[in-house]
């Protein structure tokens, strides 16, 4: 806890003038770094310094950067933010937040983080030696943590990841011990409660040791009237024969901006399943999901479902990198773009020369609800091996008015009919979710979203 106080001490008096985020970061880095120097070991400090140099060199990406072509972040980084945060939130706020993300019928452990810091009072953690769950601030000087920072990512290519490395203060650290099989999922809830406009950068890590098996469900919730920009980075390291299932729900409000980077590293015979469900209506949601396959016989499933409403931008970028033989990856992303919404999908599959007998599939299907809905979809495949089975594709369809009429002609109200049809479109993603409570949750979220969109329209 002390470390954070150190950082807030470096804070300058409140700025009256509007200052963009780049200048804020540049001006404050030295002071924040000085605070880090008092508590952190050299190897981590070194990485922070390097990363910040990359960021300063590249600055925030503009739409000239191919990776950001359709996602213009300029208006969001021109705002003025504070870089520190008040780590406390009263019980009432926490309870209100928890209520918002409650999943009916879900039997799970709970890991609650408030502004990036684990709140042990509200968490319900597994009581076993098989898993260790701690705050990053508690472990950041342990080699097991610091050596893993950016181990698997070319951070120079990812300005937000570089930025996160330079500034992160906290987050969760989860380690599953060898051959440990966690009986229930862990529901990870990030609560952000802010009294000022802030730019926050949590850093998380999940390490699944050899042969372990676990499920995570993750979500974030803001209780704030201010602008909150969260740039989070999560490392997921899956060792030999381990299996990690990871569901991520994203739902927000205007004035929330989310950039997430999930860096998955799979060793041989491991499996990773990701379910990413994004709902309105944060101003910006940009997800980078990168999967490095570092051994043979791996299996990877990435499922995405995004509902995008008016003034809401959802951008999913995925990379799956096949480097060894006999690996399988499968991606299915489905998007429903409502009136005024903008969706972006960019998926890359690389199959390197040694990766023979690769099976790699990728599909992105979109449903446009109105002529005033936009999708930019770009599936990409780069293959350097010859004995592989790969495919990719992308479709864009209009909402079927005939189907809507059929349902309404049977007495089903317009709103319900639309929800039924969106659920039908989403079905082949939703059905892949093993947990029944979560499947029902997805259905409810879809209904609520359509209901809200109807209200906004009328």
């Amino acid at each position: 806890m002390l470390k954070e106080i150190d950082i807030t001490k470096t804070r300058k008096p409140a700025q009256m003038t509007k200052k963009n985020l780049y200048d804020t970061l540049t001006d404050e880095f030295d002071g924040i770094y000085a605070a880090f120097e008092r508590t952190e070991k050299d190897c981590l400090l070194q990485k922070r310094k390097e990363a910040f140099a990359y960021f300063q060199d590249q600055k925030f990406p503009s739409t000239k950067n191919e990776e950001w072509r359709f996602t213009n972040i300029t208006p969001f980084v021109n705002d003025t933010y504070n870089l520190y945060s008040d780590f406390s939130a009263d019980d009432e706020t926490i309870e209100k937040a928890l209520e918002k993300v409650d999943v009916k019928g879900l039997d799970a452990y709970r890991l609650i983080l408030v502004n990036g810091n684990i709140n042990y009072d509200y968490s319900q953690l597994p009581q076993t030696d098989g898993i260790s769950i701690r705050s990053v601030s508690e472990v950041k000087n342990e080699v097991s943590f610091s050596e893993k920072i950016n181990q698997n990512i070319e951070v120079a290519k990812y300005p937000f990841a570089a930025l996160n490395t330079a500034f992160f203060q906290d987050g969760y650290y989860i380690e599953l011990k060898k051959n440990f099989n966690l009986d229930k999922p862990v529901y990870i809830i990030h609560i952000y409660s802010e009294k000022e406009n802030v730019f926050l950068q949590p850093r998380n890590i999940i390490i699944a040791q050899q042969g372990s098996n676990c499920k995570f469900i993750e979500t974030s919730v803001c209780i704030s009237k201010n602008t909150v920009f969260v740039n989070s980075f999560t490392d997921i390291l899956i060792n030999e024969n381990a299996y990690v299932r990871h569901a991520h729900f994203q739902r927000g409000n205007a004035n929330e901006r989310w950039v997430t980077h999930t860096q998955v590293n799979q060793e041989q015979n491991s499996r990773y399943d990701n379910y990413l469900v994004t709902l309105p209506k944060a101003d910006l949601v940009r997800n980078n999901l990168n999967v490095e396959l570092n051994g043979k016989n791996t299996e990877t499933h990435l499922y995405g479902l995004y509902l995008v409403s008016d003034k809401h931008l959802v951008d999913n970028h995925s990379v799956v990198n096949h480097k060894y033989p006999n690996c399988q990856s499968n991606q299915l992303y489905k998007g429903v773009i409502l009136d005024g919404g903008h969706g972006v999908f960019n998926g890359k599959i690389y199959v390197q020369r040694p990766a023979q007998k690769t099976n790699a599939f990728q599909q992105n299907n979109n449903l446009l609800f109105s002529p005033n809905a936009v999708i930019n979809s770009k599936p990409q495949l780069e293959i350097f091996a010859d004995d592989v089975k790969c495919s990719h594709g992308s479709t864009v369809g209009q909402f079927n008015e005939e189907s809507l009429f059929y349902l309404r002609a049977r007495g089903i109200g317009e709103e319900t009919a639309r929800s039924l049809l969106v659920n039908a479109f989403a079905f082949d993603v939703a059905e892949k979710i093993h947990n029944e409570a979560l499947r029902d949750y997805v259905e409810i979220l879809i209904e609520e979203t359509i209901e809200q969109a109807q209200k906004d329209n009328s």
Partner: protein
Amino acid sequence: MLSIKNLHAGVENKQILKGINLEVNAGEVHAIMGPNGSGKSSLASVLAGRENYEVTEGSATLDGKDLLDMAPEDRAREGLFLAFQYPIEIPGVSNINFLKTALNEIRTYRGLEPLDAKSFLKLTKEKQQLVEFDAKLVNRSLNEGFSGGEKKRNEILQLAMLEPKLSILDETDSGLDIDALRIVSNGVNKLRSKNNAFILITHYQRLLEYIVPDFVHVLYNGRIVKSGTKELALELEEKGYDWIKEENAVNA
């Protein structure tokens, strides 16, 4: 029950219905026949509330309530049912879930409690037997991959479940094999009562042997140009539509 007066409607400036008058009372069965493209399905669509049709003149009421003013779902809730000429496939929406949603929305509208799972299953089973609908199809996606005849029977299953006041069957007999035609007709006959009414749109006299109509109308060029009893259907079967067309060419 249904009262249509001087109904004019069209699509994108094209006039299709040009002054339809029709009165259907409770307990009656009316047949509407007529050449291809004369406007039979259009009439059904306008009554059911398909949005691409624009009503330019006239009225249509169901038990005194203005149908044309209502959203399609409210027309259905008020007791109008259209068995479509071409039922569409909706992948991902299960037949059973669809039936349940429809039934419960209609019940809620009428101030009734939604049916619990058990009573719903019981009702489904009962109606399924009435129209001899394959139980396996009930759990599939709505009409997805159904044969033409199966789709038509599914329409009748829905009709049986929702118990409408006024049912319009748009060429439900087309595409049914001989046995299916008998089964569907038997089903409809069992559903007939003094409180409901049916409009059968058909090209074939054969259906009318199974479901005997009280009146037969000929729709031609957007108007009902001839009405009569079931004998009119026999006459059409024998002589075709040329004489009707000629009569109207003379009159026009």
